[in-house]
């Protein structure tokens, strides 16, 4: 004790105390700090959320609010989940070009990494549907299983989707300028996400009423319908009697009228006028 107190005024005493304090803090931290692996994950996740928040502030916050709480120009994003962000941004629907009855699909301006960061931020606002992985939405490669999925998917498509998207997935009109878009060339992932989240005026088909497997079957059917070759003739949008009737009246009858005029033209009688 005497020895310690004797050196109390030594110029290095403060340094020793500081070292002791640091060692104690470090030891305590090492003892109680969370495991290193978990720590690394959460920091990557929080990094993605931070980056996503910055992207969100630039691209989305003017309508959806700085914290995604929603404004008079855009709905709240609390609880929409990462699947909705992935669908809306990756298909170019968001950020919306202009307000209106329908926000159409257009060129996507974000990279998938940026979309994932925004999705992480929006997912952190509240629990919601998670963006699917390829295993969930990709139909089977095996031809026999695939054919089975297409058959089942066709039945499900006609029950749940055909009323708006047309039996061949070519899309159709809704009320007041809204429409159900064509499913031609749409990514399997985006078809799956649309069913999961119900974008714009489309109703959602959650796993509780349409299990994952059935969604995959519908994707398989839509893929198959897109690839189906045309046995001949003009498909006319596969829209059925409306376009076919219009085509018949305008082009069919029009051609007949032109032929009738040609037959009667340039005779002596026709020259009178």
């Amino acid at each position: 004790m005497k020895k310690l107190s004797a050196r109390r005024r030594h110029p290095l005493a403060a340094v020793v105390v500081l070292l002791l304090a640091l060692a104690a803090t470090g030891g305590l931290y090492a003892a109680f700090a969370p495991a290193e692996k978990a720590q690394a994950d959460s920091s990557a996740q929080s990094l993605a959320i931070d980056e996503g928040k910055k992207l969100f502030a630039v691209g989305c916050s003017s309508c959806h609010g700085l914290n995604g709480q929603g404004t008079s120009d855009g709905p709240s994003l609390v609880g929409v989940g990462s699947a909705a962000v992935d669908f809306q941004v990756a298909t170019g629907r968001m950020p919306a070009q202009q307000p209106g009855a329908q926000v159409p699909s257009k060129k996507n301006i974000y990279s998938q990494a940026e979309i994932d960061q925004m999705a992480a931020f929006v997912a952190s606002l509240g629990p919601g549907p998670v963006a699917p992985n390829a295993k969930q939405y990709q139909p089977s490669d095996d031809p026999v299983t695939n054919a089975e999925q297409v058959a089942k998917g066709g039945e499900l498509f006609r029950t749940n989707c055909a009323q708006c998207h047309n039996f061949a997935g070519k899309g159709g009109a809704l009320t007041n300028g809204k429409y159900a878009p064509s499913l031609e060339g749409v990514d399997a992932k985006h078809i799956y996400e649309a069913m999961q989240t119900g974008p714009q005026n489309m109703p959602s088909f959650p796993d509780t009423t349409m299990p994952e497997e059935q969604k995959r079957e519908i994707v398989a059917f839509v893929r198959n319908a897109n690839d189906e070759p045309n046995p001949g003739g003009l498909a006319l949008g596969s829209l059925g009697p409306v376009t076919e009737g219009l085509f018949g009246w305008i082009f069919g009858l029009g051609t007949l009228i032109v032929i009738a005029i040609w037959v009667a033209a340039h005779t002596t009688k026709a020259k009178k006028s």
Partner: protein
Amino acid sequence: MSENLPEAHAASHGTDVATHGEPFADPGLPAHEPRRTDIDERAAKRAERQVSLLFVVSMLATVGFIASYASIDADKLVYIFPLGHVSALNFALGMTLGVALFCIGAGAVHWARTLMSDHELPAERHAIEADDDVRNDVIEQFRTGAAESGFGRRKMIRNTLIGSMALVPLSGVVLLRDLGPLPEQKLAHTNWDEATPAKPIKLVNMNTDQPMKPEDVVQGSLTFAKPEGLEESAEDFQQRIAKDALMIVRIAPADLKDAKSAELGFEGILAYSKICTHVGCPISLYEQQTHHALCPCHQSTFDLADGARVIFGPAGHPLPQLKITTDEQGYLVATGDFDEPVGPSYWERPR
């Protein structure tokens, strides 16, 4: 009208208007203009060759039709610009047959226009009615016939004849009975009427064939349902589902505008008939943001948040709504039928 005549104008204004005896004289037939082929033998020869060429093209196209039928594989697909990928066989058959028929027609028309006789034959029009002699004769014969039959004098015969003629069409009306028995109460009830509060019927998801719990139905989703026990393999499935089909949506209770409709539902879950009240099409173009359901046939639009009120289109009634609740296991069930008939109106419909 007469004041519009030139003479009337001239008289009223006191000025002279040049008038002719006949303002629109019959111009007569125009002078005959010979066709080029009539006066130029070389042109006629050329037209003859053109007509023959069209007929020869038709022959070649028919040969092409038979050749393509025999040689092209039915599964072969080719890319043709505006059509995309099409079956080579279908395209070849349609094209060759079309060309063959068109060339025969075009050749015949060209022949008639350039080489066949070009005489103009005026045909005078005559008055439509018969001349007075014929008319008088017919009227005279009718009078004689009437007098000889004593139609006007023997009233009993006349009246019984009228009676028998009036009754004969009734046979036709009676035959309409063969169109089928009257629907009785079949249109007024669906198979949901087997449900009672003591023995409710579960709502079964059309996709999964499983009963549903309220938490399965999320806001903004659309689900189709049928009564439990109605299997797709059943013989009369199509007839029964045509009345029983349900469209289940969940709307935030704050958004519900109709108190009775909210009461029939369960925590905002509403079960509406899927059958349009106009002509009975299945409707399910549901817009989850506006809560409008649209019928694809004639664009009847129903506001599902307001008791499925008709807001546009020809439908005459709101969609019937089924009263739903949950049973002790927590599944969605119906305890009775729709309170009004589903589908289109009919004469005996209560309202």
